């Protein structure tokens, strides 16, 4: 039912006082899963992901009035979700005075014991391999491989060039292959 409305229609309904909440509710239902899984692949833990996605949509609620169609709505939402996730990981690092590598190591350990992770050994290896990537490569890999985004969309989200993204993805794949085959 939510897919019947285009992003433009949802925005128009949102800007009308009488249908604002209704339109926003539809927006949440339309994008919640895509944004949630994107966040989840960054922060791994469901509870953290739940906190972040709620914060993302609260920010969207407050900022949607000012959205001027400079980009696609979806990429705008994605950018907010990405930034919130990275901010969360950075704050985690600061809160516990550990390095970013240790954060990723902690996430990797958590992955192995998480009851909400139901992948087989190969999937576990893949996720652990992804966690060894530098943050930018990890984001690019997740968005390309899991979310199926095009390089042009990823470029818009991360504000970087398509060429750079292709290189990032290529390096990420090579590192992941090396990690999986080496273990």
């Amino acid at each position, binding site marked *: 039912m939510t897919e019947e409305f285009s992003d433009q229609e949802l925005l128009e309904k949102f800007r009308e006082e009488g249908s604002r909440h209704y339109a926003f509710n539809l927006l949440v239902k339309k994008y919640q899963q895509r944004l949630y899984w994107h966040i989840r692949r960054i922060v791994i833990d469901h509870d953290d992901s739940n906190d972040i996605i709620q914060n993302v949509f609260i920010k969207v609620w407050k900022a949607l009035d000012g959205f001027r169609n400079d980009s696609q709505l979806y990429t705008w939402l994605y950018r907010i979700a990405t930034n919130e996730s990275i901010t969360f990981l950075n704050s985690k690092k600061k809160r516990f005075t550990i390095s970013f590598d240790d954060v990723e190591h902690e996430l990797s350990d958590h992955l192995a014991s998480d009851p909400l992770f139901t*992948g087989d050994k190969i999937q576990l290896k893949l996720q652990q391999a992804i966690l060894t990537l530098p943050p930018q490569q990890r984001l690019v890999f997740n968005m390309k491989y899991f979310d199926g985004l095009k390089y042009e969309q990823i470029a818009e989200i991360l504000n970087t060039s398509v060429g750079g993204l292709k290189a990032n993805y290529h390096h990420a794949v090579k590192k992941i292959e090396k990690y999986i085959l080496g273990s």
Partner: protein
Amino acid sequence: MKNEEFSDEKLKELLKNSTSSQSFNVPKGYFEELPEKVMNSINVLPDFDKQSAVQPFEVPSNYFEELPFVINDRILSGRKESVSIWKWIFNPTKQIIAALSITIIAGSYFYFSRTKTIEINNSTCTVEEISESPYFESLSDDDLIDFLASQQDENTIDEYDQYLLDNDIDISQLEKSL
């Protein structure tokens, strides 16, 4: 060509005395195991040219059905940050505050609920023992006031006044009757 023939002949001469037909070797069973190893690698590695069809993560049941309502509640209540009780519990600062609060509350409870004793004629009795004693019930308010006055010091003046207030005793009337 003449040089090549020459080097071939010389080479043959040099190798004539060599007994091994192969300079390199492989571990035992290597070629027997190689096809399986190659196929295992192929099966292990995902196809990175295509979007993944596998979703190894799960969410609690009905999570996405409930999430819009949770978000809507937060918007209506104006709450900025998501509150996770577990995050609150495992926050070190919050843990210290909670521990101090519990210590103060527990300490206060035990302090104020401790058994109070009164020393009368070199024997110690608890307040409960005295109040339950039939002798206590037969005492008049005047007797009690006299007793309290005899025990009075700087620390008990407040208790004395409080007794008068609690029992609605007008001190001016007492003084007239004495």
